[in-house]
């Protein structure tokens, strides 16, 4: 129950952290409310996967993971680069330049299983460490059992997910075709930002 309340209390922060990825993607897809709801659910499904991984790690490592400074650089950096790649794939898969061989494989895969994009985004977004997640991690680590740890994260996920549902209503503007172009531009900008941040985090930050 504590995990649920924690999620409920901090859901807006989680939403703020995921919105830069999810909002441009939903706009760019230009789907209606029902289809958007499915996309949000897929995203949440991926996010649940990320949280369960955290639950597992909290049980396995206790609070050791949080004290490992290289974690932030490596895992979050990789998650950012992954998010960036997925956003770029989402935007470019429908209009890849002819002969973009390196891109062909990814395009074919994501065209066959389009659900992989929101799922993947959700999973990688779930790996981003935001302050409420750290609290949940500490809670989960203190339970001492695998089931207890997973349950804390499951309830935390449920508590935070409520805030994501209204994003489906962006589909109410699906008829405004201009918004799709705006979404595309926003997705590319967010992708470039995450790519840059991811590389910086991966290399451990650069200082003169």
């Amino acid at each position, binding site marked *: 129950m504590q995990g649920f309340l924690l999620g409920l209390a901090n859901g*807006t922060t989680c939403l*703020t*952290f995921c*919105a*830069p990825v999810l*909002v*441009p993607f939903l*706009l760019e897809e230009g789907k209606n409310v029902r289809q958007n709801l499915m996309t949000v659910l897929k995203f949440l499904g991926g996010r649940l996967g990320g949280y369960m991984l955290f639950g597992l790690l909290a049980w396995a490592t206790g609070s050791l993971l949080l004290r490992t400074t290289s974690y932030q650089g490596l895992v979050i950096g990789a998650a950012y680069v992954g998010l960036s790649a997925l956003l770029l794939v989402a935007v470019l898969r429908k209009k890849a330049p002819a002969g973009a061989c390196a891109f062909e494989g990814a395009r074919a895969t994501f065209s066959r299983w389009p659900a992989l994009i929101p799922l993947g985004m959700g999973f990688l977004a779930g790996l981003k460490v935001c302050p409420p997640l750290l609290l949940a991690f500490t809670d989960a680590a203190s339970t001492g059992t695998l089931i207890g740890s997973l349950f804390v994260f499951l309830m935390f996920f449920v508590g935070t997910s409520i805030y994501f549902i209204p994003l489906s209503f962006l589909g109410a503007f699906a008829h405004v075709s*201009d918004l799709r*172009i*705006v*979404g*595309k*531009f*926003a*997705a*590319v*900008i*967010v992708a470039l*930002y995450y790519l840059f941040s991811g590389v*910086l985090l991966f290399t451990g930050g*650069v*200082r*003169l």
Partner: protein
Amino acid sequence: MTASTKTRTGSPPMAIWKALLLSLPMFLITALLPLQALESGELSYIVAILVMWLGFNVAFILMLTTGQTYRYRSVLFILLAVALPLWFIPMMIETHGSMMLSEEAFVSAEANFCPLATFMVIVPALVKRIVIFPSALAGGLGFATAAFMWAGSTLALGRGWCSWGCLFGGWDELFSRLRKRAVIKNIDRRWIYLPFGLLLAIVLLSAVTLSPIYCEWLCPFKIVTEFQAPTSLLAIIQIITFVVLFFALVVVLPLLTRRRIQCGLFCPFGALQSLLNKINIFEVRIDPEKCNQCKRCIRECPTFSLNEGSLESGNPLITCTKCARCIDICTKNAISFHIKGTSLQASPAVARVLYLYPGFVLLFFISSANVGAALHRIVKLITTGSMI
């Protein structure tokens, strides 16, 4: 073409006595500034403010007597933009030793608040109750002053802010006017959505990072105001980005296209103003019956705010900055200022004057802090040999 056969463009000219009479309210309102300057007792400052007051009012009278809005507005608007660094940089040198702010200065919120940052601070201010821009909350160039000025001018002019109130727009207006012919003529119209994409992305990312991402990474005007000292590789990358963006978006592309590229195809604050334009009563309208489809307005619009659809519907795109370029060049007088809720045939001359009043007042009072201060620095340079 001889003067006698030349087709007249712009709004109808006005008799001098009528123009003087209509200028009187502006003359009196703006006189508050020189009256206030007299109290300072500093001769160079009083002279600077008097010159500015006189110059601006003459330009306003010329707008009315000639019927040309763009020409005179543009001169004043460019003056405003060019004036800013002329006083701001010496002021920075006086207070901080250089244009560069140290990390400590940012931490202690010593940066001057920029109105362009408003769109980034709204979401964190509403959700987290935090002002993420490193400036003071109140005071001369603080958040409250800028927010108040922005809210008032948005109400009065909508996106007209970008032609009358923006501190920086005059830079790319200047460079867009330097060449007679455009070198690059065909620009994919989808780029007009970039500012909106940028607005969305920056608002969302600023809420996550709790930092003004646009100011940190993308503002071309940092190099004519202030920026963080290059104490790290990241800061050096930031400065290089500012320089590249300034020369690309504000100098080179406006020169090559004769358009305001930064304002029309990049500025996210302009996109915000476009979205808020609905709350403002002034608009530009096209009379499809008068229009002869010469499409000169489409080719000349500095911010890509007109297309074929606009000529049919009678409405420019929401990105229209009400700069009056199209109104001034239309040989058929098919384009005019208009007050929402009135008929298209309702006197465009009245709508124009009513629009010019708030536009001019905003431009004058924003300029008063800039052009006046810049003139003051120039007078100081002439009399003492130093602007500092």
